């Protein structure tokens, strides 16, 4: 009988009184059995029943906590393992460093190559631009020279009023030559652009300028230094006085800051002449 109580150990005294009594009752019933002459049987209780409900709850909470810790740690490690080098060994780190520096070298050489290319392209573009600028300048100056483009600038406007006497083409030609000598850059004779191939002819109807009949009063516009152009016409014994004295024509020379020459001459197609390459 005593053995059974000892089997429970010290814990038995902590159990509720009812349970203790019930256990005792069962044990007594077993032990007081007199039907056989055998020794009272001493059964070991299974250890499972020893534990109370509170301990079970505690352990299950602990289990939950531990599993939660495992899941938490797992996810944390998952999120942090991508960017950490601390788990790599020394060899791996050295290899990584080598690879990175090799990559840097490659990229540097690529960069220098590309910048060289860029430089050459830029210089080519600059050259191209320079060529374009010169071509444009040439085109403008040659356009003005050949009479393809209208021009404006300071110069003089000469008006020659013819009286009864006809002014011959040669005198007019002299006037144009004088203006040219005085540095006239662009000239217009009564609405006809004066270029290298411009001709002046005496006809029955009067003057003919490059196939176009011109009527007095003749208006000659010239772009150049105004004072020297005026001097060229008005100089004593010059073409101006010749016109006045010989032909009784009225010659007025007016200086202007903005002489506008709008008449142009269509460029001719050269049949024989070719540019030298």
């Amino acid at each position, binding site marked *: 009988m005593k053995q059974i109580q000892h089997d429970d150990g010290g814990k038995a005294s902590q159990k509720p009184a009812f349970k203790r009594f019930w256990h005792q009752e069962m044990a007594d019933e077993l032990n007081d059995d007199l039907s056989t002459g055998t020794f009272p049987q001493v059964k070991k209780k299974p250890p499972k029943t020893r534990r109370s409900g509170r301990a079970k709850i505690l352990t299950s909470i602990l289990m939950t906590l531990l*599993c939660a810790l495992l899941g938490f740690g797992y996810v944390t490690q998952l999120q942090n393992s991508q960017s950490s080098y601390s*788990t790599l060994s020394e060899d791996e780190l050295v290899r990584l460093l080598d690879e990175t520096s090799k990559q840097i070298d490659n990229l540097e050489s690529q960069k220098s190559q590309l910048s060289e290319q860029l430089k050459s392209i830029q210089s080519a573009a600059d050259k191209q631009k320079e060529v374009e600028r010169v071509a444009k300048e040439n085109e403008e100056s040659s356009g003005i020279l050949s009479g393809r483009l209208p021009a404006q600038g300071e110069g003089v406007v000469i008006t020659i009023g013819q009286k009864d006497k006809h002014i011959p083409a040669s005198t007019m030609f002299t006037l144009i030559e004088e203006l040219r000598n005085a540095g006239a850059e662009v000239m217009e004779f009564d609405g006809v652009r004066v270029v290298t191939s411009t001709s002046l002819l005496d006809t029955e109807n009067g003057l003919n300028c490059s196939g176009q009949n011109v009527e007095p009063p003749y208006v000659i516009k010239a772009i150049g230094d105004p004072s020297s152009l005026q001097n060229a016409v008005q100089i004593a014994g010059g073409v101006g006085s010749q016109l006045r004295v010989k032909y009784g024509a009225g010659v007025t020379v007016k200086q202007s800051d903005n002489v506008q020459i709008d008449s142009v001459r269509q460029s001719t197609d050269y049949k024989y002449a070719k540019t030298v390459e």
Partner: protein
Amino acid sequence: MPAIIGLIVGIVVGIFIKPDVPIALQPYLPIMVVAAIDALLGSARAYFERSFSDRVFVISFLSNVVTAALLVFLGDQLGVGSQLTTAVIVVLGIRIFSNVSAIRRFIFRG
């Protein structure tokens, strides 16, 4: 059941909080996780063998984790940290495989 609930809760919390691992703990965390997985699988095997005890599970879990971390810590002190980490991982991996095969035998009776 509490184990599964705990796992889910831990993963969800980890996903939403996104904590930074302190540098001192960085080499130990993966080992601890692997050790915990081993303990979990061991307990699952015990469950199928009808000898599961939650107390044993708690103790084995903690001892597994602590032992693994301590081993790696010792290796770090001795300068063989990475090798010892590998050793621990290998041992735990073998255990995990044997546990899984035992569980499979219980499930498929093969």
